[in-house]
């Protein structure tokens, strides 16, 4: 066990804090990209859309990945009651990831791209990321020991860690001519990998969410229940086989589409059900104690339902043919990555970063105001994308099709609302991040164990479980 020092920041916390900085930055890139929709040629000569889009996508994807890794590392220690197998490996992983992320973001500014849809960078940068992830895999497996009698969240973490590596490697099969030398083959494998990769990071996040719910409620049985495992295996089934709904209109094998159509996206509904049942069972006192973290989960709960509605509709090929290639797809992605992933990660960040001795009592007003602003803005943002998507779908199906540029002009009012809501969403998230980071900066490592939800807390590297 590492000696406790007053100002030392644990490595898992550094993962989360680095992720937060990327989220804050990624929102700026997102707003600039949005402005390029409504102001034609906006800073085109400095940062054209081909640069802004990957800057935005990679920043927010790395926020999700880094924050998820930091959360898994923290909760893994709280679960086992031991420090990580190797804190040094975790630090090396952090250094590799931090260096690579900075290099990737800089590469876009110099016009160096991977040119793939949608998460792209030069393939050479994939090598250090794979190396870093292997270190994480080693650390995870060595820390957890065995899957015997483990709760569902450990299975979810294991799945996320293993499948992320597999799908990430798979997404680079295009470098081999066998896979690359036809657009249809290439796109089939590409969307197979990316579809499942999203499922793999969802596994990491949902596992942490399940751990947090267990911690708050103090109900350990929930994570061992048959229902929880049935839902986990349904999610795994979806991760493996539902990716074909991205390519219904691609002239690839028909069986891929039929399999995907049949494998429904039930994982989010199931998670929503768990959250709902858990919410009813938590006592008022405990709910109050974890108020900030709980509220993010409650908001994510709403977004689960909104996103699942859209996801189910889009998984039906007859509907997908209308929504495919429109902003309805973007609305779905934003609902999932901001409404679910980011809000759940913020719940975990709020929970994890408070596991220190704080000089001030709570993050306070900025957090509450930011939370409200972000959620209202996200709803407007999401609705404006759906409206833009419907208008584009009507245009796509119109026999007397007007030119693309005219259609984009018709969508302008929706884009203006989208950009306005994007700006207030950015401000809301900044306020939340500002509250969390300043609150954390005024804290120190605590040596006094505190009892929370059946788990003794000292700090993230020194925890014992009842």
């Amino acid at each position, binding site marked *: 066990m590492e000696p406790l020092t007053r100002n030392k920041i644990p490595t898992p916390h550094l993962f989360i804090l680095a992720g937060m900085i990327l989220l804050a930055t990624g929102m700026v890139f997102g707003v600039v990209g949005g402005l*390029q*929709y409504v102001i*034609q*040629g906006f800073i*085109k*000569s400095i940062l*054209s*859309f*081909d640069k802004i*889009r*990957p800057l935005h996508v990679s920043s927010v994807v790395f926020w999700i990945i880094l924050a998820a890794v930091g959360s898994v590392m923290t909760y893994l220690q709280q679960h086992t009651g031991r420090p990580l197998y190797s804190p040094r490996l975790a630090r090396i992983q952090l250094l590799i990831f931090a260096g690579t992320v900075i290099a990737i973001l800089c590469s876009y500014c110099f016009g160096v*791209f*991977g*040119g*793939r*849809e*949608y998460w*792209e960078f030069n393939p050479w940068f994939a090598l250090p990321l794979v190396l870093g992830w292997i270190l994480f895999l080693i650390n995870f497996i060595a820390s957890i020991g065995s*899957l015997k009698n483990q709760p569902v969240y450990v*299975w979810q973490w294991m799945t996320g860690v293993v499948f992320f590596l597999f799908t990430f490697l*798979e997404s680079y*099969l295009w470098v081999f*001519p066998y*896979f*690359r030398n*036809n*657009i*249809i*083959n290439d*796109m*089939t*494998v590409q969307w*197979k990998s990316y579809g499942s990769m999203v499922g793999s990071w969802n596994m990491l996040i949902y596992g942490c969410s399940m751990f947090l719910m267990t911690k708050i409620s103090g109900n350990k049985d929930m994570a061992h229940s048959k229902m929880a*495992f049935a839902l986990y*295996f349904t999610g*795994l089934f979806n991760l*493996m*086989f539902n990716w074909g709904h991205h*390519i*219904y*209109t*691609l*002239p*690839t*094998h028909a069986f*891929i*589409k*039929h399999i995907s*159509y049949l494998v429904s996206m039930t994982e989010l509904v199931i998670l929503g059900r768990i959250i709902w049942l858990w919410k009813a069972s938590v006592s008022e006192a405990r709910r109050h104690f974890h108020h900030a973290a709980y509220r993010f989960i409650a908001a994510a709960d709403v977004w689960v339902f909104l996103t699942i509605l859209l996801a189910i509709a889009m998984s*039906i090929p*007859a509907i*997908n*043919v209308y929504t*495919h*290639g*429109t902003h309805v797809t*973007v609305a779905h992605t934003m609902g999932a990555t901001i409404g679910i992933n980011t809000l759940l990660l913020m719940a975990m960040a709020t929970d994890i970063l408070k596991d220190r001795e704080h000089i001030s009592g709570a993050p306070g007003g900025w957090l509450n105001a930011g939370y409200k602003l972000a959620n209202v803005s996200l709803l407007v943002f999401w609705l404006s994308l759906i409206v833009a998507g419907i208008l584009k779908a009507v245009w*796509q*199906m119109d026999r007397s099709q007007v030119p*693309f540029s005219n259609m984009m002009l018709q969508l302008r009012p929706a884009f203006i609302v989208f950009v306005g809501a994007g700006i207030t969403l950015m401000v809301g998230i900044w306020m939340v991040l500002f509250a969390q980071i300043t609150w954390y900066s005024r804290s120190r490592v605590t040596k006094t164990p505190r009892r929370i939800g059946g788990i003794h807390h000292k700090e993230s590297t020194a925890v014992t479980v009842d």
Partner: protein
Amino acid sequence: MAPDFQKTIVGLLLTLSFLTYSFYLYSSLPVRDAVFTIDVDRGKAIWQQHNCTACHQVYGLGGYLGPDLTNEYSKRGPDIIKAMIRTGTKTMPAFNLTEEETSSLLSYLKHIDQTGIADPRSFKIKLDGTIDQE
């Protein structure tokens, strides 16, 4: 059966199915006999180097700022595409490609065009919710 054993069996079966499905797909990719010349490969590399997919879609997959380019080659013809690449638009930067690079990029767009039709109006919707291309 012990619960852990059951979970392990289900997990292994799913993983085995996934791996079988994956490797079956790798070995039986849908298009086997397409003509993919060195020029098309070079065009694809240029497409990726300039991150064209940030703004443009192929089969409805890609960015949303520019039009879907799957069938633009047959719709507009190489000359108009060539002019747009050279001069740019209000939104799109002018790419300073050489004649050779432009020719390779056009070969790639021609190749994409020959793989199928992306227009959603060409799909026939069936009662079971599936779709077919006309």
